[in-house]
């Protein structure tokens, strides 16, 4: 198991950091988050084409660069740091993995190269209005017609679901034998009977949609097998990806806050000279560094095929959920009044911390998952 990044990885990271600082300053984040779309085709194409970010973790045989999750997590960490507004997590993480693990060869060949090139944006619609993250808790059931399937029901909390070209839907299918299995379906975003509602999300940099299906035509893209296992793998890989994205944001907040307290003068002295501030800053460092270790370890463990990976992914997500939110709370507190204003950038990360704390499961949810995998 590797516990450090290679020189190439470090170089890639620092290049990417500079690049995103330039392309996604908070003025740009604020501009894009205020739009309904949440991102802009032209701007995203410029960022993506130069670096091939959507291709990085897709296998070479499907038009990708074939790197591991560890490399993709560097991208995610830096995106989390800069709050880049782009359909990356929805397309290149959630949906690409669902297709990679759950779709038949035909559909992998059809969709993955286009996702890799960035020409196709895709959303994975798996959660429903209950907001439950467990793969098995889905209730939508596809109805089989002669040549195709029809979907009716509601999918919610679908990341970038209002904007994506392609929607991949997780739904149950009734087999001839009378039993049910989970399958993946592709739905064109312009399909008849599909209504897409942009939800009002607190974190404006992360757009969520409610998708209402009324007898919508869908193509089954998975094989005859049940996709539960494929979806579990997709879920835990996405949790690891999100954890890395989160620690990137947490670290940026921590650094900005430290810089601010060093500059801020009160009572004739820098507020960084107060021991209570120093100790809090150290606690923040510990929170973020430990969460980083868990996120990095989980990505490397996934690439290494570690057997306890489900628990490890949950450790990473639980750790990131707690650390990011706590860092954000501390960041606002240490900024004082200015930190509570709209003009100050702290709330941008605070809100991302909140949405990520919940997205793909809160810390409590993941702690229960850990216990289930250890106590069998």
């Amino acid at each position, binding site marked *: 198991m590797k516990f450090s990044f290679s020189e190439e990885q470090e170089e890639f990271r620092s290049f990417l950091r500079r690049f995103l600082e330039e392309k996604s300053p908070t003025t740009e984040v604020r501009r894009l988050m205020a739009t309904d779309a949440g991102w802009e085709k032209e701007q995203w194409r410029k960022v993506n084409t130069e670096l091939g970010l959507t291709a990085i973790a897709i296998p070479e045989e499907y038009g990708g660069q074939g790197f591991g999750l560890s490399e993709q997590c560097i991208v995610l960490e830096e995106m989390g740091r800069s709050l880049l507004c782009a359909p990356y997590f929805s397309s290149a993480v959630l949906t690409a993995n669902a297709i990679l693990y759950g779709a038949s060869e035909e559909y992998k060949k059809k969709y993955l190269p286009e996702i890799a090139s960035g020409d196709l944006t895709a959303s994975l619609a798996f959660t429903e209005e209950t907001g439950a993250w467990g793969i098995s808790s889905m209730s939508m059931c596809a109805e089989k017609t002669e040549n195709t399937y029809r979907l009716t029901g509601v999918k919610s909390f679908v990341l970038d679901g209002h904007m994506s070209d392609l929607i991949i839907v997780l739904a149950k299918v009734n087999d001839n034998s009378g039993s049910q299995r989970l399958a993946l379906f592709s739905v064109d975003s312009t399909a008849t009977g599909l209504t897409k509602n942009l939800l009002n999300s607190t974190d404006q940099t992360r757009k969520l949609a409610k998708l209402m299906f009324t007898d919508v035509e869908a193509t089954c893209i998975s094989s005859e097998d049940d996709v539960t296992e494929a979806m579990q793998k997709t879920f835990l890989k996405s949790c690891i990806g999100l954890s890395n994205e989160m620690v990137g944001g947490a670290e940026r907040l921590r650094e900005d806050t430290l810089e601010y307290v060093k500059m801020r003068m009160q009572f004739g002295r820098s507020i960084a000279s107060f021991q209570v501030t120093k100790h809090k800053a150290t606690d923040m460092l510990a929170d973020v560094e430990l969460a980083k*270790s868990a996120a990095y370890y989980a990505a490397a463990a996934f690439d290494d095929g570690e057997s306890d990976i489900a628990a490890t992914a949950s450790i990473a997500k639980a750790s990131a959920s707690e650390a990011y939110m706590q860092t954000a709370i501390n960041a606002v507190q240490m900024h004082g009044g200015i930190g509570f204003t709209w003009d100050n950038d702290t709330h941008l990360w605070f809100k991302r911390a909140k949405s990520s704390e919940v997205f793909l499961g809160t810390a409590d949810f993941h702690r229960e998952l850990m216990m289930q995998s250890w106590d069998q």
Partner: protein
Amino acid sequence: MSMNEEQVRNEVREWLKENWSPNLDLVEWRLKLADSGWGMANWPAEWYGRDLPVSLVPAIEEEFNKIGALTIPKSGIRMLAAATILNHGSDMHKEKFLKRIITGEDVWCQLFSEPGSGSDLAGATTKAVMVGNKWVVNGQKVWTTSAHKAHWGLLLARTDMDDTKHRGLSYFIIDMNQPGVETQPLMQMNGHASFNQVFLTDAEVLPDFQVGELGDGWQVATTTLMHERRAADSLRSWGQASKGDGPIYDQERVETETTMQPYKWYPQRAGRVDLIMDRAKETGAIKDPAIRQEIAKLMTLHKSAEWTARRARAAQEQGKPQGPEGSLGKLAASNVARAAAKVHTLISGANAMLTGEDSPMDGTIAEILVSFPASSIAGGTDEIQKNIISERVLNMPKETRFDADKPFKDIPRNTVS
């Protein structure tokens, strides 16, 4: 592998072939090690070493281990004494002490901490005053491991009340077997007495036994403390005596057991995370949703602390500059110990009120519950750690000092000390 290492390995093998025997007496064997320089190969050739770089020591020890030959234990206060003497001692000190440190015949202790100066070691008020041709020492030291068995003590004492706090200190080697030195065990809240208090009442030190110049005590003590940190790191591996049959192994086992005795409760101090899952299953506590959450919180903290340590080590091995992750181990360990004690309490329920044979695991759980507070105090409190990290890692302003640039006698200090 460089030629150099290969040559050294060959030489060690050759020497061991001629000299090692499990039938030797332990001291006899260590004398051979001292005379040949193979015991402390990184020490100077004129002082029982071979002038070899410290990086070759693991290779040498590996050759020893291959044939079951005993090495010199590299830990313990006596090794701190050796490091200090090698750095700052006179030739007389080296001649008199080093060999018996290698053989293990002399036991040493460290007389730094005082009731009035714990985190602030340089605030020591134990005084050494020259009376006639001897130093006469008065004061009280505390947290002294092995003082009751020690032949010699490393003493930090104040020789000038008018000079500044740090400049007023000097460093001595004191003979522990004299009427002016009284040692009492110090009972801890967990019932163990791993340390001692030492009362110095007109205790005497010959002028020759001063280490370094007058007023250089703090600087010399810094050397000792630096080695103490390293020794703490190797404590774990040291605790495992070599396995082997023969009188020399028996002798070493007795020595190790005696030396390790004070540290028996240390695993409990760290919280015994290793026991959590089994205990939760045995007691059925694992079915309780609230306790499941607390166990998972603890495991998350424990695992991420472990991975942080691995990350720091990996960076170090690659010769990268130490990142912030390298300074967080001790703080993380305090948090893990605290969380573990809490979870053990939840798992044990009412039984957490009991101790000794009435309690779970014959008192081991009870011992965790009254030992963990030591984690966040010993070897630098969490608060001092946070000061150090915020100042050195985060580059935040240093604490305002009220004790610099003035005579020590004018600095406010504890009235009881």
